[in-house]
């Protein structure tokens, strides 16, 4: 598909910044999993005038009345996150990182930064809006000789973290709320799945070059907007992995093409625009064998149905792997009606619904071969809302691709999330003073621009003699700052430090050890102490394993817990002499080759405590000495 068919893709990258404080308060930017200290309950009250049109009003209905619980911690969330105190001034560190990124993306910073309130009604912000500010516009990056435009860079506060959700309430945690993030949007200049991946990777590397971004799962999120010739602009949210981008693009292109084919088929059939002729068909299912329907009826629910004339068989059409037009209808029913899903005659008889039942329901509506009937079981109100949404989505099928916001599934397919937002409801955040971006500020940032990763990789190979592969692994990793520090300030061998981060850490990760939680200073301390000979290189994995499993404990504790404390080399030598004396027969017989035989005995005593090479050297010396004595 690449490069053809009028495919246009834009990428929006959200990246958390690694600042010491949040964007509008002095709280630390840490996520926590221990028991929250308190919970408050809130409601939000959006007014209909803020949403307007039918779709959004309908969605608003489903959001309305939802109760939001916010969990917080006394020592790491404050009244600002709780919306109980006005925001403090915009975090200067975050502004300067955002400006740095903007300059690396060849963008034009704004003259004066103004913070806005963007209305968000899902409760993910205690205020009911997200604070966001435009920092720069109109930049570009190069992709294989093509300029990809960077339209905008905004600095915003991250939302609260959703912990759980039911029909009538959502539980959020305040730890993530207020962590600064940059939102970078490219123009729709990307024309293939592979190019999308490359551009995302490139922007990602520019972000990493600052050394001031958060790393790990959930700290970066890519949204894509995709359209094809004759299709529509569809936004896909929450692509967490770079590797998934090509699949998302390809599946969306596939979806839009199939939807256009379905539109053509509906036209060929002369299908009428579906109407909301929703009927109660509970009477047809009084004696049903379907467990799902029985369950709904027992709890006082109903079965309601609506005919889709001219849709017969089309609901079965696959539009993405494992997803059919029927699945699209079902997504809408779930979002607007809060139902578990729909039944449609294209997939029946099944789920305990008999052929006879299908016939009787089709008869009820006078539906024939070329027609479908969609059914929902549940509370009357939910059924109605769900079927109204189904009819609206079916109606859109006659026009092709509806513009909408979708969410990525783990396999790269997507599901409906919400209608496309109208022009964002934004108004000024009057509690936060504006910031003039002076020439002095920009000059200072320009003269301290970080080294781009490409240049850094080259430097690492030249300066430290790393292989290009290892150099690029280190540069891409979160450890390049420690790496340089250990090598330059402490004189550690570059290959040893690099190998620790790339191979030792990889091995531990495979064991399921979370090395990302290791404290940077602890990592440095371990490697420096090994270098000084305080314990053996072989002990390094063991120490990191222990530190990762014993969060909050120090290196010295690890060393004593693992009884790794430094061994006096004289006693090692004494042991070596002892071993040589005990095995004089072998030494005499095999000469220097005996070293490798006796090594095992010495290792038994000092494995992990003394470097293997040191043991080998000592033993060799003693063997030679013994041979000379003779």
């Amino acid at each position: 598909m690449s490069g053809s068919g009028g495919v246009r893709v834009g990428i929006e990258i959200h990246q958390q910044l690694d600042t010491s404080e949040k964007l509008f308060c002095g709280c630390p930017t840490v996520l926590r999993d221990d028991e929250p200290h308190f919970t408050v309950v809130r409601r939000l009250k959006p007014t209909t005038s803020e949403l307007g049109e039918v779709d959004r009003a309908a969605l608003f209905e489903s959001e309305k009345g939802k109760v939001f619980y916010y969990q917080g911690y006394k020592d790491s969330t404050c009244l600002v996150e709780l919306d109980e105190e006005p925001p403090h001034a915009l975090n200067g560190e975050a502004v300067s990182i955002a400006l740095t990124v903007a300059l690396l993306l060849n963008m034009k910073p704004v003259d004066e930064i103004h913070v806005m309130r963007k209305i968000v009604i899902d409760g993910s912000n205690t205020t009911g809006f997200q604070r966001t500010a435009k920092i720069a516009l109109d930049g570009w990056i190069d992709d294989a000789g093509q300029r990809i435009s960077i339209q905008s860079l905004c600095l915003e506060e991250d939302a609260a973290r959703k912990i759980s959700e039911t029909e009538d309430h959502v539980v959020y945690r305040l730890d993530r709320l207020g962590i600064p993030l940059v939102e970078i949007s490219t123009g729709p200049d990307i024309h293939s799945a592979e190019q999308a991946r490359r551009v995302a990777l490139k922007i990602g590397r520019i972000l990493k070059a600052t050394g001031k971004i958060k790393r790990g799962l959930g700290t970066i999120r890519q949204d894509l907007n995709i359209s094809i010739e004759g299709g529509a602009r569809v936004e896909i949210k929450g692509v967490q992995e770079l590797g998934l981008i090509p699949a998302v693009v390809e599946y969306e292109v596939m979806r839009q093409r199939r939807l256009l084919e379905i539109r053509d088929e509906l036209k060929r059939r002369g299908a009428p625009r579906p109407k909301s002729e929703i009927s109660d068909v509970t009477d047809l299912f009084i004696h049903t064998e379907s467990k799902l329907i029985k369950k709904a009826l027992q709890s006082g629910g109903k079965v309601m149905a609506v005919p889709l004339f001219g849709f017969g068989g089309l609901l079965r059409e696959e539009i993405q792997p494992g997803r059919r037009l029927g699945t699209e209808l079902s997504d809408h029913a779930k979002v607007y009606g809060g139902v578990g899903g729909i039944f449609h005659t294209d997939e029946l008889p099944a789920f305990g619904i008999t052929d006879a039942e299908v016939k009787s329901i089709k008869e009820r509506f006078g539906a024939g071969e070329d027609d479908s009937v969609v059914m929902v079981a549940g509370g009357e109100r939910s059924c109605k809302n769900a079927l109204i949404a189904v009819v609206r989505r079916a109606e859109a099928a006659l026009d092709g691709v509806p513009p909408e916001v979708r969410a990525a599934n783990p396999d790269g397919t997507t599901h409906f999330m919400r209608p496309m937002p109208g022009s964002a409801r934004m108004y000024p955040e009057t509690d936060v003073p504006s910031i003039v971006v002076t020439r002095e500020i920009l000059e200072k940032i320009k003269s301290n621009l970080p080294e781009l990763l490409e240049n850094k990789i080259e430097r690492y190979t030249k300066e430290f003699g790393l292989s290009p592969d290892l150099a690029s692994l280190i540069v891409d990793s979160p450890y390049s700052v420690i790496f340089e520090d250990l090598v330059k300030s402490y004189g550690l061998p570059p290959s040893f430090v690099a190998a620790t981060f790339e191979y030792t850490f990889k091995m531990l990760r495979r064991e399921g050890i979370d090395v990302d939680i290791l404290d940077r200073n602890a990592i440095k301390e371990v490697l420096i102490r090994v270098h000084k000979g305080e314990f053996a290189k072989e002990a390094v994995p063991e120490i990191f394993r222990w530190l990762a499993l014993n969060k909050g404990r120090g290196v010295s504790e690890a060393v004593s817990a693992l009884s790794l404390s430094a061994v006096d080399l004289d006693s090692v030598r004494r042991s070596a002499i002892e071993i040589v004396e005990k095995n004089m027969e072998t030494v005499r017989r095999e000469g220097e080759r005996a070293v490798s035989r006796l090594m095992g005995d010495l290792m038994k005593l000092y494995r992990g405590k003394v470097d293997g090479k040191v043991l080998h050297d000592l033993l060799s010396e003693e063997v030679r000495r013994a041979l000379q004595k003779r």
Partner: protein
Amino acid sequence: MTSTYGYRGRALDLITKYGIKVGDRIMVRNERSSFVGVLMPRSELDDDAHIVLKLDDGYNLGISIDSLQIEKIPQEEVSPPPPKAPTSRPGLPRVSIISTGGTIASRVDYRTGAVSPALSAEDLYQSVPELGELAEIRTEILFSLLSENIVPENWTAMAKSIERHIKNGAHGVVVTHGTDTMGYTAAALSFALRNLPVPVILVGSQRSSDRPSSDAYLNLKGAVLATAKAPFAEVGVLMHSTSSDDELVIHRGTRVRKMHTSRRDAFVSINSSPLARVVDGRIETLGKYKERGGDLELKAGFDEDVVLIKSFPGIPTDIFDPIIHRGFHGIVLEGTGLGHVPERIFPAIKRAVQSGIAVVMTSQCIYGRVNMNVYSTGRELLSLGVIPGGDMLPETALVKLMWVLAQTRDLEEVRRLFLTNIAGELSDRSEYEEVWHP
């Protein structure tokens, strides 16, 4: 900030030169870039070297006016949709809402970002439609004042307006008010509205109502519910009882104090239990109250020649001289502890009392009552003619002294009236509370 919307100096000159005003759609250009957007207001803190533009994606940004070219883009005036007609079921209790300011109800114009009050009955029904199910509402916009700018004259006007609404058959009156001085106004109305026949509830919001998280809606609904249904006929202040949007609390007007600068539950009853709680749309009264009924008697005068002075280490000995000289009528002292001031200002107090000024003692501890018999300092102050304020809040004592002095200047009569419990502001029992502070 009038018609220039925060623009001044060079920036104002520039937009004036081009004949541009806030809300106009313009194209601006300098040597680096060009933008199209709507000219937005500037804040009082902003400089005069930038203009603010709202781009089509909704973002505002400031643009340096250096070598800036501006072009106005003509556009049609869009008139806002007409508000829906108020709907209210017949037979509901009649409630009046008198607004004095604050942002209990407001709407945002997303085009210009301007926040404007929404105070007519139509506006209110539209922003809080549930009100129509609680009561039949009349509204009056009495003032549009920030509460820090309210003066005793305004209390008198409020009391008169409330009287009018009650005479016209209101089952209760809601007064919307900025929160800063809502406690003072509540005390003033408590004294002014004698033999009150219906509840009068002051209500405000700590988060302005243009934001979806505002506490205004819940508070306003609670206030309308309480004025329509509560069994008590007293002046109360209704606000959140915790940081959560669930329980509301109605404080007695003479006993309430704003104790936090920003939290939703900033208001606290001091030295007394609140009047009631509102939970899940039900009103639960707490303790004794004056029942509905009776004939309203208005005593709405306040003597503005009263000052509130806090004692502190090193308070100058001549502190009262200008007050005596200027001829003030009353001084409320916020003494330390049980009601003390440094010995060295005794002569000054003596001079004040001798010149006919009523001097009242309260405590800056806020919680607890003054008792001037325990230490010799207190006893001496009493002998100088200082009137002990009991367990009255210093602010309530100030308002009460203003109210008393409007009726009499005779110091004996002042003392008698001041020491009489008028509106629940005084009690002779201090009840035990496990947790006595907020």
